[in-house]
């Protein structure tokens, strides 16, 4: 066996590739996240305070939980726009049940089942009828939003108080109350669900099958994976997680309405893509999404503290998303050419 010595040109190209590769690694989303933190910490004195981080993480928790489900959908080769309807539906169902004196645990269970039902509808339509996920989840988003508005009768429904001025179900507020170390419980719930999502995707057969499904649907089917059932499971999980976000949103706000979390679909897709996910499927993960969620939340928080115009905030966040996707594409290109 003989090996050919690389030519001088190839050596130089390789070195350049290597430098570009590491430059892009540093410019990648985790690197950007660190740079953001440093920049905001220097520019806005309040940014580094514990109180600010507690608020930032609490705001990020809802998006993060939805984004875990979105990660599953995107890794499987689809995506789930219906979360923008399932979050308010979950919140409205939960508040309506609590206000109707349904037991706390039962209200949570019923809300989770509501989210799962929306997800099951998505999964069955996509897998059994072969309808595009965009169209399917757009339709179910509209249905879920309409149901949420119907339950709330178009109103903002506040959690009912007793005559003594206490919530009729104090456990609701506990879900997002300050807890260990001064962080709120919704943050801990988000962290736990992220870890569960990470282990599920990375270390379980089902999780690996989701990657296979997103990587090549036909190959996954030929490999014996029950693609229809798996697709349905993915959307059921996504719907359930969106319902959890709805419950936590209601807990944070002590109220719900039909427009709560209406921007969740696009923001959660943004977070997943920032975290390394690909709309072509088969790529992404819970920890990457966590970073994506933190980037989105940190940008929003830091720019607000710096008193940047809300219009410019939109421009900056959009530009960051585009930059992250371009860097991600360049890294893949360099990976494949090394």
């Amino acid at each position, binding site marked *: 066996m003989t090996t050919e010595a690389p030519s001088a040109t190839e050596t130089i190209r390789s070195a350049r590739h290597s430098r570009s590769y590491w430059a892009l690694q540093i410019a990648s989303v985790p690197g950007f996240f660190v740079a953001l933190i440093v920049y905001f910490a220097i520019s*806005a004195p*309040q*940014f580094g*305070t514990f*109180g*600010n981080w507690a*608020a*930032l993480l*609490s*705001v990020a928790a*809802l998006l993060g939980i939805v984004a875990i489900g979105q990660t599953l959908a995107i890794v499987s080769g689809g995506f789930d726009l219906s979360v923008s309807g399932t979050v308010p539906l979950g919140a409205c169902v939960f508040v309506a049940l609590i206000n109707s004196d349904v037991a706390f645990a039962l209200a949570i269970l019923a809300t989770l089942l509501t989210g799962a039902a929306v997800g099951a509808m998505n999964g069955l339509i996509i897998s059994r009828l072969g309808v595009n996920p965009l169209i399917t989840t757009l339709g179910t988003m509209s249905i879920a939003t309409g149901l949420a*508005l119907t339950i709330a*009768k*178009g*109103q*903002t*429904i*506040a959690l009912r*108080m007793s005559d003594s*001025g206490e919530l009729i179900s104090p456990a609701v507020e506990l879900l*997002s109350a300050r807890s260990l170390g001064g962080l*709120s419980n919704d943050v801990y719930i988000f962290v736990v669900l992220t870890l569960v999502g990470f282990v599920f995707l990375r270390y379980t057969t089902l999780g690996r099958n989701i990657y296979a499904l997103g990587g090549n649907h036909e190959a996954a089917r030929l490999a014996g994976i029950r693609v229809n059932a798996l697709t349905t499971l993915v959307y059921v999980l996504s719907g359930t997680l969106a319902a959890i976000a709805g419950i936590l*949103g209601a807990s*944070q*706000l*002590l*109220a*719900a*309405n*039909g*427009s*709560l*979390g*209406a*921007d969740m679909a696009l923001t959660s897709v943004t977070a997943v893509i920032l975290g390394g996910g690909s709309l072509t499927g088969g790529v992404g993960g819970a920890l990457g999404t966590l970073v994506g969620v933190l980037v989105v939340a940190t940008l*929003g*928080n830091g720019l*607000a*503290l710096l*008193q*940047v*115009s*809300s*219009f*410019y905030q939109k421009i900056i966040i959009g530009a960051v998303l585009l930059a992250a996707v371009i860097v991600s594409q360049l890294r893949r290109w360099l990976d494949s050419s090394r």
Partner: protein
Amino acid sequence: MTHPTAISRRGFMGLGAAFGTMALVPGHVYGQSAATGSAAGAAKLTTMAFANGGESQAQWVDLKNGFLSAADTLGVNLTYFNNDTDPQKTRQNALLAVNTDPRPQVICMYNQFSGLANSLSRTFDQAGIPAIAVNARLGAGSHWFNLDEIRLGQDSAKCVAKVAAERGWTGENTIVLLVNGAEFGKEVNILLGEFYHQLVQLMPGLVPIGSPEEVPDNPGLSKFNDTLLQVDGNASLDQSFSAVSNIIGNIPADKNVVLYTIVTSSTLGAWRALERAGIAGRTLTVGLVGGEAGMEQLRTNPNWVGEADIFYGHWGQYMMAMAQAILNGETLPDLTTSPGVVLTKDFSLPGTVVAPLSDYYGEDLTKPLKLPPLEAMSKGFFGLQGNEYLRGTGVLQQFGNVEGL
């Protein structure tokens, strides 16, 4: 732009024309012709069409229910449309409304898109059907029904200032946090400017702004001066919560906070963010058009000192009275004002529309005991405004709920 909260839009462009109209009809006595009902020979209102702004907000649901109920009371054949906060649907509904069978004598159009005014008014003009614009007007000279946003903003400020003074708050130890809807435009956010501009005059130490319009002219600006912060809550419960949560660090620990937003769902979200940050105890606020949730806050929250109520559920009867006035051939003012009061826990303020909650509501916070007296005609920002002339149509008397009728 859409405005999901159903707060009034103003046609600033039509201001000059509005005053022009006023100049053409000096001294006109509105409603003079029909002190005992319809003018002699005038048609009685029997058919009408109403296109609502949407059905996704509490106010619109109340508006729809009120219209249907008023139509029942008066025996009016009402055709209902839902514009669904969509300009295409708004235009489509205008076309459908003029072709409705039976043909409506008057069309009420809740329009959120000032850019559609020409298209809509042309449709109604070509069909020869008079129209009443709700929210955004349909051009100068059109019949227009809306809330008196300037008055509500100013009187809300007076309400807060009274309670703040009782607690020893001044501009020296207070900052004002406004939560706007940056994309909703000047017509909506002017309310915030009026509120702050009025508050500056009542709380010495607050840093003045040039004019009320400075606030809506800078919807993206986060800090106007040392006593005025602004965030964009998009008129939404959860987005207001997030926006305020993000700037908690910019609220000085030694300052009290006066919170004011463009709609109570936004106030509720912002309030919750302040509450979670431990700031609600040193915050005062007044809600706007909050429905039951806002009323409940007013009743139970010691720092929720007022709630502006414009009685959305009863707008239908006022617009039907307006329609009858049109059929009677009367000349309407530039702006027919909706009923509006700023409700408080227990006080009223002379010369304002500030009144105690108990004056208007009993236990049931969804059904007012009465509606405020009709307002005499006066010169306002858009020309002549008021609703006293509706007395002459005899329509409102059939509901028996307007004070003084």
